[in-house]
């Protein structure tokens, strides 16, 4: 028995002079999550469309007495709605999951992913609804995905390095609802945003659509926030090992009469991160006193200690206020993001030398404006604008003379000069203006154009009271401007079975760079302006062989513009380089999505993908004119070939087994070094790169457990990462630094009470308390327990 919710929301009205009317609306699941790519068609006609990634659709029908619209999506019950001539053409359609089929969430997983792939992009779309009740971080979800590698420098709030199909670091760009997150600060990032505040994570591998306007060389991660349409207020609190507390609050309110809308999301994260670390990398220096009273410090290795200076705190409030569903706009908001974090620094790149006082702090304040309107000016033209101005301040404090050991004690010896990592009171201020404009235009039913532009203007100033000899020249602000534009043509051909997305992107940067020159012993500074541009092109296409088999292929000549730091230098040891060109990469993917229905209860899905990356002009830090100075240059070439994939087995709504694997072979192709020497590393595997990874998961969902409508789940996850060398595999034979293999098991259970308002879950991470390393000599947390309560207040 299906129930049809019909809520008139007035998402814009557009009557043409002829006898047609455009009907718009949003398709949702019962939990108010948008259902992207659901089919919408006029009954008994060939007039139809699909919902976009936000579940929104529009369809033009000719006015008859009554028009019957049909809404369908795999895993949901079909819905029919009669549109009367007098109806306000703005709809919210809620589809109910089909009961006899498999779990609702799995269906969304399948359908969303498949639909994004139908556009030809090699992408994973992870619905996170089922995870929202768990004590899980976005980073953990990402690291479970085939081809994605998340390398953490420790516990909550530690530095994270992401890679997609072997391209890492700045090659991977993050977005929130399509907005580049580069200037949001690390306090508001994939490492801190609570999973309960997003509905979906889209991961694009190698080839990135123009809507995500950035210079993503290796891929992009788009966090899609919840699409609210009903007033609500959700709260969650998670607590557990290492004094970890995470609180999240999100709410949505709308006045139905005038469209006045308010949104808020806020969170607070805290952890002592005082987990135990052990092994050969951990030592204390024991005092051995000789007959003359002189002390020799003899390291005792292999001890077990608790991290003592690693606490992390982050807090964020993000509020939007404006109107939705009014004539002038589908959405118009002014918003404010306030975010901050505080981090103790336990050690440097490895655990060998512990710190006890160094800290890092960051805050960001960002007012912004969003405007979204479909059918603006003319039918089929849509506009989506985001403009923000942010001030981001990063401060480092590292002045102590105390020397700490791994027991958290202060040694008798003092540092002659303060500073555990580097003596500093550096404060860096970055003022960034960001403007993103996205325009879409439907040329016809089967062809649409997209245009996207992202422009950023960054002003950077530095100060450090410990650097006592300042000059105006040195400390004057530096400027960095960057523009990425893209144009795409989406087409559906051969009965919509062949979909193609052809696109071109252009990249520019401008920088005002301070350079120093010394002539006859006198150093002078001048500002040099520099600009570079590059051009990229790509195609993503898919072909539906039959309803269960989809082939997709994509190619892109991708670019990454140099970062401000790479062009401008860091003001300390890295000097500027006005001649930097963008990194570029030729990326190719080929894969298929095969759905095998074993019988009415059992299904297997197989999604393998072959990939190829050929990177050139890769930036490399080399020693400059003096041995103590470094500079970025365009230099390295890397070729990556690999395969990743996922196989899933579904039984009814209850059982899901997932196995994903990825293997990559990144080979250095640079045959000369920057000086002209033969490169001894040429044609060897890139060092410090994990190349084999496997994830397994078994999950059981109970429907109506103990009580009607109550839900429960239990899962077990296993992650394996193969061991790899920190440096070249080719050189040396003894005591080579090696990151050992990882075998980590996680387990969790959860229960949602019958009223669907309250749920509670328990998670155990790293059940067997094994030593886990993402990076050389940096141990990650051992066994940890978490409990989380989710509550829908209204």
């Amino acid at each position: 028995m299906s129930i049809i919710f019909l809520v008139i929301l007035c998402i814009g009205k557009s009557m043409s002079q002829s006898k047609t009317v455009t009907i718009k609306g949003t398709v949702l699941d019962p939990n108010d999550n948008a259902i992207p790519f659901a089919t919408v068609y006029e009954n008994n006609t060939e007039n139809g469309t699909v919902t976009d990634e936000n579940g929104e659709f529009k369809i033009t029908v000719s006015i008859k007495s009554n028009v019957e619209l049909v809404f369908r999506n795999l895993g949901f019950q079909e819905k029919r709605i009669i549109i009367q001539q007098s109806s306000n053409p703005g709809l919210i359609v809620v589809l109910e999951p089909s009961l006899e089929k498999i779990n609702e969430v799995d269906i969304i997983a399948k359908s969303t992913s498949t639909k994004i792939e139908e556009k030809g992009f090699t992408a994973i779309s992870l619905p996170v609804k089922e995870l929202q009740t768990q004590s899980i971080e976005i980073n953990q979800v990402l690291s479970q995905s085939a081809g994605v590698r998340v390398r953490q420098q420790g516990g909550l709030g530690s530095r994270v390095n992401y890679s997609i199909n072997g391209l890492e670091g700045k090659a991977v760009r993050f977005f929130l609802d399509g907005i580049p997150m580069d200037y949001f600060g690390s306090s508001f990032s994939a490492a801190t945003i609570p999973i309960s505040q997003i509905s979906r994570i889209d991961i694009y591998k190698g080839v990135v659509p123009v809507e995500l306007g950035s210079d993503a060389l290796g891929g992009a991660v788009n966090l899609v926030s919840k699409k609210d349409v009903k007033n609500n207020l959700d709260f969650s609190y998670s607590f557990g090992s290492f004094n970890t507390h995470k609180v999240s609050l999100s709410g949505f309110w709308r006045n139905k009469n005038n469209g006045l809308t308010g949104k808020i999301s806020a969170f607070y994260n805290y952890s002592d991160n005082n987990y135990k670390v052990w092994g050969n990398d951990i030592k204390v220096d024991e005092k051995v006193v000789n007959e003359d009273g002189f002390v020799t410090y003899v390291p005792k290795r292999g001890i077990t200690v608790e991290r003592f200076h690693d606490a992390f705190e982050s807090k964020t409030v993000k509020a939007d206020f404006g109107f939705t569903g009014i004539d002038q706009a589908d959405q118009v908001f002014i918003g404010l993001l306030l975010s901050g974090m505080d981090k103790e620094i336990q050690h440097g790149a490895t655990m060998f030398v512990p710190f006890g006082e160094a800290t890092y702090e960051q805050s960001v304040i960002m007012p912004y404006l969003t405007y979204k309107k479909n059918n603006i000016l003319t039918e089929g033209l849509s506009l989506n604008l985001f403009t923000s101005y942010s001030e981001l301040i990063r401060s480092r404090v590292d002045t102590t003379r105390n020397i700490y050991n791994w027991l958290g004690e202060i040694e008798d010896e003092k540092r002659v000069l303060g500073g555990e990592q580097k003596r500093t009171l550096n404060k860096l201020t970055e003022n960034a203006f960001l403007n993103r404009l996205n325009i879409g235009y439907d040329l016809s039913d089967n062809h649409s154009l997209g245009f996207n532009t992202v422009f950023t203007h960054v002003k950077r100033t530095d100060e450090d009271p410990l650097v006592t000899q300042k000059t105006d020249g040195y400390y004057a602000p530096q400027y960095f401007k960057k523009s990425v534009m893209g144009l795409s043509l989406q087409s559906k051909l051969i009965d919509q079975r062949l979909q193609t997305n052809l696109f071109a992107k252009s990249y520019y940067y401008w920088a005002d760079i301070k350079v120093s020159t010394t002539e006859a012993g006198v150093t002078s500074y001048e500002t040099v302006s520099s600009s570079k541009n590059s051009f990229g092109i790509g195609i993503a296409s898919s072909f539906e062989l039959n309803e269960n088999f989809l082939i997709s292929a994509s190619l892109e000549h991708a670019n990454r513009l140099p970062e401000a730091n790479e062009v401008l230098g860091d003001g300390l040891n890295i000097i500027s380089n006005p001649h930097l060109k963008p990194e570029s990469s030729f990326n190719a993917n080929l894969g298929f999505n095969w759905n095998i229905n074993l019988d009415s209860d059992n299904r297997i899905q197989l999604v393998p993908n072959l990939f190829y990356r050929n990177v050139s002009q890769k930036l490399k830090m080399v020693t400059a004119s003096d041995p103590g100075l470094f500079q970025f240059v365009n230099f390295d070439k890397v070729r990556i070939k690999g395969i990743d994939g996922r196989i899933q087995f579904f039984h009814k709504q209850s059982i899901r087994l997932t196995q994903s694997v990825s293997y990559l072979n990144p080979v250095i192709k640079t045959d000369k070094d920057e000086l002209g020497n033969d490169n001894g590393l040429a044609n060897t595997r890139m060092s410090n790169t994990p190349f084999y990874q496997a994830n397994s998961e078994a999950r059981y969902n109970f429907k109506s457990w103990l009580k009607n409508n109550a839900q429960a789940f239990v899962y077990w996850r296993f992650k394996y990462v193969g061991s790899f060398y920190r440096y070249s595999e080719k050189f040396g034979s003894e005591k080579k630094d090696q990151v050992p293999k990882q075998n980590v098991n996680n387990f969790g259970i959860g229960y949602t009470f019958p009223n669907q308002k309250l749920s509670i879950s328990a998670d155990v991470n790293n059940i067997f308390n094994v030593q886990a390393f993402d990076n050389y000599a940096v141990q990650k947390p051992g066994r940890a327990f978490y409990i989380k309560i989710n509550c829908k207040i209204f």
Partner: protein
Amino acid sequence: MKKYLSLAFVFLFGFALFSCSDDDDNDSNPNPEPEPEVRDNFSVLGVIEGAYYLAQTESLSEGTLSFVNNGTQLEADQAARIIASGDYLYSLNYGTGLLTQLKANTNGGYDIVKEINAGLSVGTNRPRFKLASEDIIMVYNVTVEPIKDQDDNIIDNTCTLRLASVSIPDLTIANLNEFVIPQSDNAKQGGTIGYHPMRVDGPVISEDKIYFGLMHMDMSDPTTPPPFRKPKQTGLETLVFDYPSLTNGTVVESSVASGHTTGYRAPSMHVDEEGDVYQVNWFMSGNSFDLSAGDKTVISRLRDGVYDQAYSFNVSEALGLSTNIASVGWFYVGNGIGYMPIQLEDEGTYYNSNSWSVAKIDVYNKTAVKLDVPLSGLFSYENGVAANEMFYMAISPIGGESYVYEFDPESNDFTQGLKLDGGNVVVDGVY
């Protein structure tokens, strides 16, 4: 049980033999002609892309040594530096301050014998070190801190040296000292803040003195912030302590030439068989180590804790080249003979270019000959070996093939010896 008995026997017997031979030496061989030492085990330090490897070779004069699947990786947070003395090698992990004693094993690599945290003793994770005599490694750290007046103006700087004497092979701290390095009138540059001592290096011990080379930083121009501040020096200065007490620290000076006296990685100072200290200045023009124009690379002599003003050996002049030559250190073989990496100004920049050659120098006769080895980059070159009546050092021309070269101190001859990987496998030293 039998095994232990025989071991004990050998031990006792050996001890007795050793005791006897000591006497024998004194009695029956009062003036021994030293047998030429025949070494058949050497070590080579290779660096590639930030990773440091140490490998063994039986010969430096022939054969091939590759680090491909060969050698022990050294712990190197930022860098690893090596000292060889007696049966051991000592590796300093620049970044953690750990000093590790290594012994060659039978697989071509090295086993760890013992390690100490030498950096902690001198209050830094990044100390510098040098073998000062066969049984002492000196470990040290200098810091420069501004002294401000009430208005926050910098009026002076305090330059503090902390130094530790590490006794080897037992690897224990034998002495520890902290010393505020005085600024000479010459370095004060006429009353302004002037040039301040910012580094000591290259210590040697002769009789009851220990000598440290000094490097100064130009602090006088407040418009020049780091990292653009330049090391500068007028005159020559050396820090001298009584040894082994490490007391009575004084800075001695000479006006024969200008330059830092620390050496870079190649040592600046050597003690000859007479106990005299010969020191090269660090003179280099046209770069951030620029010194007063028209100055020169010279060898000076220190004796009894002061400069011997009567001795000066102008190496540039002795070479008879039309352009200046620059140097940062040299290697001593014996009988006044040494080998000095020299930079030829018109061949390129001092760093990252093939602008360096090698000169054979004679500090007794004040003669120097430029040897016709391939031009290479030797600014960072660290160590050579005097053994088997020859001198060996690695030469790795940028874009060319790398070899250890064998130099004959009796003549100006040299030959290509052990072939190395070449390319960007940088060999910083042989030991």
